[in-house]
Structures are given as C-alpha cells and as structure tokens.
C-alpha cells in the first residue's frame, strides 16, 4: 500500500554515495590471496619454510657435529641413533644434511640476490635508455648466453679454486644474464605506459622513473625469476661439489655428500638417497612456489 507521503521528494546527494565499502587492498594482499588458492604453491612454501627452519636451528638439537668422526660407526644404515645412518668416516648423516641445508640454501639465496641486483641495474639501464646503448648491452648478453652458463661457472671455479665465497662470486657473475633479460623486457613494455609518460611530463628524473614507476611494476616477473633461479643455483652448486669444484671438506653441502657417497654406492645406497632427496624436494618446492607466484603476481588476473 502506497500513501501520499511516500511521494515526498528527498534530497539529491549523489556524491555521498561514493563511499568505498571494501577495505584497501594492495597489490601484495591481492597476490597473497591468489597464491593461497594454489595448493601446490602453498605446499612448496610450507616445505621451504620447514627446511629453512631445520637449517637454522636443527643442528643445535643434534647431539652430533658434522665433523666428528667415529670410525667404529662408519657406514651404519639408518637406525634409531643415526636417523639417516653414517658415512664412511662415521659422521652422522642427518646432521651433515642439516648443515648441508644451511650451505645449499644460503648459496641459493645469496647467489640469486647477487644476480637480482646486477640484473636489475643492467637490464634497467638497457631497457630504459634503449637506443644503441641498450641494443649493444643486450647483444652482449645474447652472445654470452650462447654458451652454456655452467661452463663459465666451471671455468671460473677452476681459476678461483674451490671455496664458499668463490662459489658466490662465480654464480653471481654468471647467472645475472637471465635476470637482465627479464628486467629489460619488462622495462621495455612498461616504458611506454601512460603513467610513465605522465611522470616524464611532470619532470621526474630518469632515476625516479626507474625506481618509483618502472621497477615496482616489474616486480612480478622479477620475483618469479628470482624464486625460480634459487633451485638452479642450488643445483649448480651441487653439481660443482659433485665434480670437486665446490665447497671443500669438511664443509658439507648436499652436493659434497652426494659426491662422497658414490664410492660406496652399491653397498650403502642410503648415503646417496638422502642428499639426493634433499636436493630434489627443495628444488621442486621452489619450482612450485615460483609457478604459483607467476600466476598470483600477474597483474592481468586482477579482479
């Protein structure tokens, strides 16, 4: 039933209806929500966090150290006292693997961040300034990329001699090529966006444009590349250690452990199994996480 009062005019206030009901969502919150929906990626994240935690505090809880040799207990299979068994010098493998985690993970992360820094600077300059400078810089990258990067690393390690710092140097000096290509590609495509033109118009300097406008918007693919380059670094280090060019004894990265186990492989296969499993699971987890991040950070998927 409608009565005459209902037809009374009410005020006209269209702008008051312009309130925003939803809470502020930043790009990162949005991406995190999308990432959470990806089961594999979350599994990867959980595993990585677990391994990192173990690497950090695990050795504190172990009654053994990584270098104590008890020859009487050499080559024991996994048991209650030695969860992963012992190696040929009687050292507890589980503890060795925990320390190995520290080394392998730190190599993976530090090397990747060195690559990130060099790659962003090189790719950023090549992409933003373009022209002949950019072309020359990228042709250089293309030429260097023509040879398998592992070869460069091996050569560098031969020259520098095995050791942890030298591995950082070798990996850092070589693997930035990929990051530079990614960064340059991103910058190229973002450079002509209207908000970049607007920034130029209001008088922003090149540095400001690269740092405030281009890099933050390129972070998606950069983070994905970073995440995916960590397993590559871990594997490369494992390979180097396997062929004897990596860290030196008694420091035990997973690659070293794998290398040492080859001699007694037929009799004591567990000595290879655990390091290999550690490498594989870690790499897989980073790959799943990286894939998930790629979808989560894709700006086009924004709703």
């Amino acid at each position, binding site marked *: 039933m*409608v009565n*005459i009062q*209902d*037809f009374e*005019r*009410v005020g*006209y206030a*269209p702008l008051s*209806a312009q309130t925003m009901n939803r809470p502020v969502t930043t790009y990162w919150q949005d991406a995190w929500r999308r990432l959470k929906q990806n089961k594999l990626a979350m599994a990867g994240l959980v595993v990585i966090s677990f391994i990192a935690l173990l690497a950090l505090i695990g050795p504190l809880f172990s009654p053994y150290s990584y270098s104590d040799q008890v020859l009487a207990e050499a080559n024991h299979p996994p048991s209650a006292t030695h969860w992963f068994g012992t190696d040929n010098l009687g050292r507890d493998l589980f503890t060795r693997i925990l320390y190995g985690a520290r080394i392998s993970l730190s190599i993976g992360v530090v090397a990747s961040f060195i690559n990130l820094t060099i790659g962003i600077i090189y790719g950023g300059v090549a992409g933003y300034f373009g022209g002949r400078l950019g072309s020359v810089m990228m042709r250089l990258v293309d030429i260097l990329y023509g040879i398998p990067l592992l070869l460069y690393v091996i050569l560098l390690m031969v020259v520098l001699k095995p050791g942890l710092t030298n591995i950082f140097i070798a990996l850092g000096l070589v693997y930035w090529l990929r990051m530079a290509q990614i960064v340059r590609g991103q910058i190229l495509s973002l450079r002509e966006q209207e908000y970049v033109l607007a920034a130029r118009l209001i008088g922003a300097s090149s540095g400001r444009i690269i740092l405030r406008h281009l890099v933050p918007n390129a972070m998606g693919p950069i983070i994905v590349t970073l995440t995916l380059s960590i397993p590559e670094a871990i594997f490369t280090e494992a390979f180097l250690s396997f062929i004897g060019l990596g860290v030196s004894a008694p420091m035990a990265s997973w690659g070293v452990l794998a290398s040492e186990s080859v001699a007694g492989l037929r009799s004591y296969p567990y000595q290879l199994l655990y390091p290999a499993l550690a490498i594989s699971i870690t790499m897989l987890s980073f790959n799943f996480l990286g894939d998930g991040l790629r979808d989560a950070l894709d700006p086009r998927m924004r*709703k």
Partner: protein
Amino acid sequence: MEPVLSVENLTVLFHTYAGTVQAVKDVSFHLDKGEILGIVGESGCGKSVTANAIMGLIPSPPGDIAAGRILFGGSDITKMDEASLRRIRGNAISMIFQDPMTSLNPVLTIGTQLTECFLTHHSMAKSAAAERAVQMLKLVGIPVPEIRMKQYPHQLSGGMRQRVMIAMALALDPQILIADEPTTALDVTVQAQIIELMQKLNRELDTSIILISHDLGVIAGLCSRVVVMYAGQIIETASVSELFSNPRHPYTHGLLDSIPRLDEARAHLESIEGQPPDLLSPPVGCAFQPRCRYAMRLCEQAPPLFAPAADHLSRCWLEHEACPHSLPVRGHKAGEPA
C-alpha cells in the same frame, strides 16, 4: 506475430571471491522478425552479459543463470546442452563483437576463416564454400573480394575487418544477428559505412538484429525499438521515436540531456552526477536513486515496471498513478534545428 526471440525474467549471477554479482536481474524483452532492437546502457549495466546468455556463452563456474528463460524456435536456450548450442551458434543466432582484430584469427587467411563457417555447419565441397564466401564478401561491400580472400586480418583496415566479421556472422543466413558495440572501435566515417551496411542487410535479408551500444546516435539511426539497461535491469523500453522525444525514466532523461548534439548549441550539459552502483552490493530499492534528481521516499523500495503508454515501459515510481510529480518535458522537441 510470434516474436523470433523472447527473453523472460532472465537473471544471471556471477559468483566471485568477493561475493555474488547480480549482473542481470529480471530482464524481459522480445525481438520481432526483421526488426532492429537496440539495447542501450553503459559499462556494467549487463547488456553484454545478456547477449552472451542468448548465445549460451556464459562461463559456468563463476556464471550462473539463476532464473528465467530464453525462448528461441520453441526451446529454451538456458536449458540447452553444448551440442545443441553449437548447432545454433553461427547458424541461427550469430554475434559480432566490438574489436574485429581480436575476433579474427590472425594466422588464418580471410578465405580460410570464412569457408570454415560453411564447412562446419554444412557438408559441401571446398570450392562451393569458397564461392559462397566470395558472394558474402561482395554482399558486405568489400571490393575485389577474390584478392581479399587470400589476405590476413592484419592487412585489412578496421572497417574492412568489421565487414568481414559481418560476412562471417551472416554466412549461414541466421535469423538473429547480435551486434555488441560493432562500431565503437571504428572511426566515425567508417562507422557511417557500417551503419549503412547493417541497414541494407536488414532490409534485404530480413535478419532480426539486436544492436548493443552506448552511443545514442547510432541507436537513433538504426533501431526501431530500444531497451535501456541500468545496473543489470531494464529501466525503460519504448519505440525509438517515443524514447527520444518522451523519455519517462530519469536516467534516460538525464542521459539525453548530458550528450551534446551536432545540430544544436547548448550552454551547459546537464550531467548525471555520481556513478553506477557496485553490483556486488546492489542498493536496496531503485538502483538509480542515489543519482536521481527526482528521488522520493518511495524509491527506497524497488520499483516495478510500469506502462505509462502502450508499448512504453518504465521502471520508476514517478509512473505510479498516485504520484503527483512528473519529469519535466525535454526542452528541445525532436526534429527542430537549434
């Protein structure tokens, strides 16, 4: 006469992470044979979703036809399975889109894409299909069609590509052509060509057309009847002359007041303040109320469709028989020069 297409109380929802979006709510209209029906509205009003629902193209996980029917040839499109829908699409009901560049496959020649239309739905020899394709290109006014058959989409201009789209859509002589913003991405002189083409095809082939556009000029030039949508609902339906000379809904009224006309000079454009509502949390009552200059207390309740005149529907409480207010007459009478 039985309408060719009848949409009844159609409601389409989209289930997103943030909630349920009521993209289309209780929409009803019909399309008669040989007529050009216009659907006018702005972004988010639900016109494209309606068109997609008619073609059976609503993606089923987020999308959900919650209510209503779409009657075509005696059956309900909303209940059809994919196989039956595929028989209809392109064959009985066709659609052309806004951007012809993304609707055409860039790696196939025009000829291949056009003949594919024929070969998918009928079994005929390739040469026969090619001949029909050339005929269609001639029909849509493409000069030297034999050469164009061998060209790729990027070698054609925007206007040409849109003509090819129209040729592909009409290849199988469908009963209904749905044109979703067919001229929006085109230059104005090319737009005039395409409008003329659509008029000619409607006359010669008697194809019924649903024209979706936000451009009231294009609507005025092509359509015989118009449906106006806002926030997922139909808020006004009328013949084209009636809608432009005597709009009954404040939105239509405001829209006509806010667009400049080439043939008149106005000191000030009366704009509609504010913006369309967020369909995630649709307002209670009339969706247009926050922006309406004539809002009344009653507008807190959702208005039904009233019929102020024969064939003229308006979803507004101003049309209630007991309402003492009414819209001001539009200052400019149709047809009078400035």
